[in-house]
């Protein structure tokens, strides 16, 4: 970091190169550090406190790796590790390029790395060892015979992938933040930093989306309360930077196309980064009560100090260089893409404020009133459902509005049929017995948005098909590959529609809980559950109680489900293993909830959750769409075709070639 500052001040090429190499060296050292921790886990080195607390001898190798980020100390080092991959990639990709910008980028990323490395070195060091006083002032290493093992809630394949994905999202936003701050500090000309960081932002956003979706799925199949989103503060922390990051990905197009909203975009990036740090603070410090959060921790003041420093640096940089961000914003018409992006940003920011204020309100209440209050799912659902539906509406409207101005004729052409069919779907839903207002609105909007997306693909493909003579499917592929960002974006929007379909299903959730001795039956919806047997099974590193449930669907035996609870003696904790029979229509979700205190009979809790699978499918589509948007556009190439009629005059007698457009050919 010092080298980078010296390089900026002196502008000496050798110092710039040296600072860059120092950046590479830091990354390599962090990789060595995380490799050492992994080695300690794999070799069961229980003289290291962190290893002893989060692993044991019987733990499968796969989970020994997962244990690296399962506790506070390791997860913060892991954060530095992921960040170092980004920093290394950025420094390597732009080595020798953008000499006015990159030294600043190096300093900002080094500053962030410095913070996390200071915490890992001086506050929560994962390499602390057990010791006992020896002769004189000496300490002897003491190794435990075995460790406590991984938290059973984390012994799940998805949980091995979820944190790295989420961390890749969180840390990834450091890159656009570093470029934005660097461009501001260095008064880097034009919108180039936006072009440079677009892909990095999308990569971070993609990882954040994967992390959030995996977290939802993990909560659904592991925690066993029947849902996937409980508005827990730690869940909320993961969605906050996602919301502002989404706003940035949209509003940045205004800067690229029209040079507008420069100040707004810079602050959106700053806020997104601050929210990633704030989210980590909530997870680490127990600021708010959460089943996920770590207990009160020594890192708390460090995080607050870092947030304060980052804010002061950002504000000072903005204030001193605000004239650099001045732009001549003009709006031709209210019915334009620009205004739709303004509303999109407004709604995303309102959603962010609603979630953030709700999450922190118990803390404010404690400070102001001295009393503790709770802000749970009923509050968040009531506030966020209308916001979400408005956002869904904008998802359909925004892309169909033209830049600068959309004519009335164009509005009719683009929105007429989708709006009409959406309303028809809503009326049909009500006629078929739909009585929930929000679900009906959601149905109308889902049909509307899907049709607008399909219409966009169809219209573009028809033009290509007319020009090239290729069939409509091949034209859709060509169209998409020609402008991956635009059509990848549409795919993402379609994924969001699928997720909303899944969300709307939760309005019709049913559940039933009853004492079920072996042989007992329970009916829920079209399913009949028969408790066939109940076993206690000792396994290598846990003991389980497992119910065997035969499931009949409309009178036909469909599947056997095995809900269980496991007890891990090494850390005296237990975990739920939910059994789920999932279809596109609904999930039958069965939990062995424990034993009745009066009768000692197993209690089975069954849920019928409609449309949940659509949420996971939507998540996959969102991720695929983002990956598609990251693929470089295919450039059109000219191929030549012989003219059907000879040209009468001209120096050459051979028929003149007519250019036709072909794609994907050399």
């Amino acid at each position, binding site marked *: 970091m010092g080298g980078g500052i010296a390089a900026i001040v002196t502008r000496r090429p050798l110092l710039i190169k040296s600072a860059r190499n120092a950046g590479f060296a830091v990354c390599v050292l962090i990789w060595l550090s995380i490799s050492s921790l992994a080695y300690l886990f794999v070799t069961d080195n229980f003289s290291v406190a962190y290893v002893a607390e989060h692993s044991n001898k019987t733990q499968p190798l796969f989970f020994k790796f997962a244990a690296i980020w399962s506790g506070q100390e390791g997860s913060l080092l892991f954060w530095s590790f992921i960040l170092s991959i980004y920093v290394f990639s950025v420094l390597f990709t732009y080595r020798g390029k953008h000499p006015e910008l990159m030294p600043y980028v190096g300093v900002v990323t080094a500053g962030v790395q410095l913070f996390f490395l200071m915490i890992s070195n001086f506050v929560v060091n994962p390499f602390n060892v057990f010791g006992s006083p020896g002769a004189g002032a000496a300490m002897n290493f003491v190794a435990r015979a075995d460790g406590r093992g991984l938290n059973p809630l984390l012994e799940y394949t998805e949980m091995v992938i979820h944190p790295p994905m989420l961390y890749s999202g969180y840390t990834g936003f450091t890159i656009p933040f570093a470029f934005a701050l660097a461009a501001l500090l260095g008064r880097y000309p034009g919108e180039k930093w936006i072009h440079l960081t677009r892909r990095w932002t999308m990569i971070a956003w993609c990882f954040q989306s994967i992390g959030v979706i995996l977290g939802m799925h993990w909560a659904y199949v592991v925690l066993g309360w029947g849902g996937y989103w409980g508005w827990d503060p730690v869940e909320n922390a993961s969605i906050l930077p996602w919301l502002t990051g989404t706003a940035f990905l949209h509003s940045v197009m205004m800067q690229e196309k029209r040079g507008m909203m420069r100040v707004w975009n810079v602050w959106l990036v700053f806020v997104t980064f601050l929210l990633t740090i704030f989210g980590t603070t909530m997870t680490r410090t127990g600021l708010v009560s959460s089943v996920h959060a770590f207990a009160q921790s020594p890192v708390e003041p460090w995080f607050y100090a870092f947030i304060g420093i980052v804010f002061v640096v950002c504000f000072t940089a903005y204030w001193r260089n605000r004239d650099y961000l001045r732009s001549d*914003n003009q709006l031709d018409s209210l019915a334009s893409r620009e205004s739709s992006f303004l509303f999109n940003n407004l709604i995303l920011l309102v959603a962010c404020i609603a979630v953030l204020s709700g999450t922190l309100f118990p803390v404010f209440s404690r400070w102001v009133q001295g009393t503790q209050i709770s802000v749970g799912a009923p509050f968040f659902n009531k506030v966020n459902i209308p916001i979400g539906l408005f956002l869904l509406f904008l998802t359909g409207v925004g892309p169909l509005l033209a830049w*600068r101005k959309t004519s009335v004729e164009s509005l009719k052409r683009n929105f007429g049929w989708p709006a009409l069919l959406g309303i028809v779907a809503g009326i049909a839903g009500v006629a078929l017995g739909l009585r929930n207002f929000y679900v009906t609105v959601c149905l109308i909007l889902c049909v509307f948005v899907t049709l607008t997306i399909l219409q966009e693909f169809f219209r573009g493909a028809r033009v290509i098909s007319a020009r090239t003579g290729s069939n409509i499917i091949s034209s859709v592929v060509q169209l998409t590959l020609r402008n991956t960002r635009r059509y990848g974006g549409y795919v993402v929007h379609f994924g969001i529609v699928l997720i909303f379909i899944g969300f709307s299903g939760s309005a019709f959730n049913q559940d039933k809980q009853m004492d079920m001795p072996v042989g007992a039956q329970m009916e829920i919806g079209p399913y009949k559950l028969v408790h066939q047997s109940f076993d206690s099974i000792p396994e290598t590193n846990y003991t389980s*109680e497992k119910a065997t449930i035969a499931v009949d669907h409309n009178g036909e035996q469909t599947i056997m489900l095995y809900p269980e609870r496991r007890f891990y003696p090494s850390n005296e904790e237990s975990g739920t293993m939910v059994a789920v029979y999932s279809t596109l229509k609904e999930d039958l979700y069965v939990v062995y*909830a424990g034993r009745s205190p009066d009768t000692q009979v197993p209690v089975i809790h069954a849920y019928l959750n409609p449309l949940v699978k659509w949420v996971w499918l939507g998540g996959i589509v969102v991720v695929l769409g983002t990956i598609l948007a990251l693929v470089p556009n295919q450039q059109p190439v000219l191929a030549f075709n012989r003219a059907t009629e000879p040209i009468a005059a001209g120096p050459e007698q051979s028929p003149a070639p007519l250019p036709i457009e072909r794609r994907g050919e050399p």
Partner: protein
Amino acid sequence: MTGTVITLFRKRRRVAALVMLAVAGVLISGLVYAQNSDRAKRVGSQLMCMCNCNQILTQCNHVGCTMSAAMIKELDQRVQTNSSDDLVLQSFVQEFGTKVLASPPAQGFNLLAWMIPGIAFGAGLALVIVVIRQWRRRFELAPAGGPPVSSEMLERARRQADQETDD
């Protein structure tokens, strides 16, 4: 002699394993009451579990919860007394304080929690309107350059730009 020691050792191991299994059984199973009434579920979804897990009472099933089972049993009993939902909720508030409510009551300082999203939306909307008006004024005041273009031509150019170059 050696045989007797081995047999004793094996017996002890077997007893220890059985004891462990029994302890595990108690710890695994937790103690849950089957909750049958729909009304109890509805009222329970407006209450928080008081074990500090920040989960809705009827959804709290996390490992080691010391509160939810007893609270659900209490809820079932209070619902059966035929008192209104509000009275049942109030009885929990009296016992645990306002923290037991899943949403902040819309009164006093807590009303602010409900108002913040609306205030944010209102303020944001006002800002967007001001910004749009300002940008529109700038556009109207901006000097037109180049030769005059007919509205049909402009519309055609816009449509073409829409179709081909839009992003």
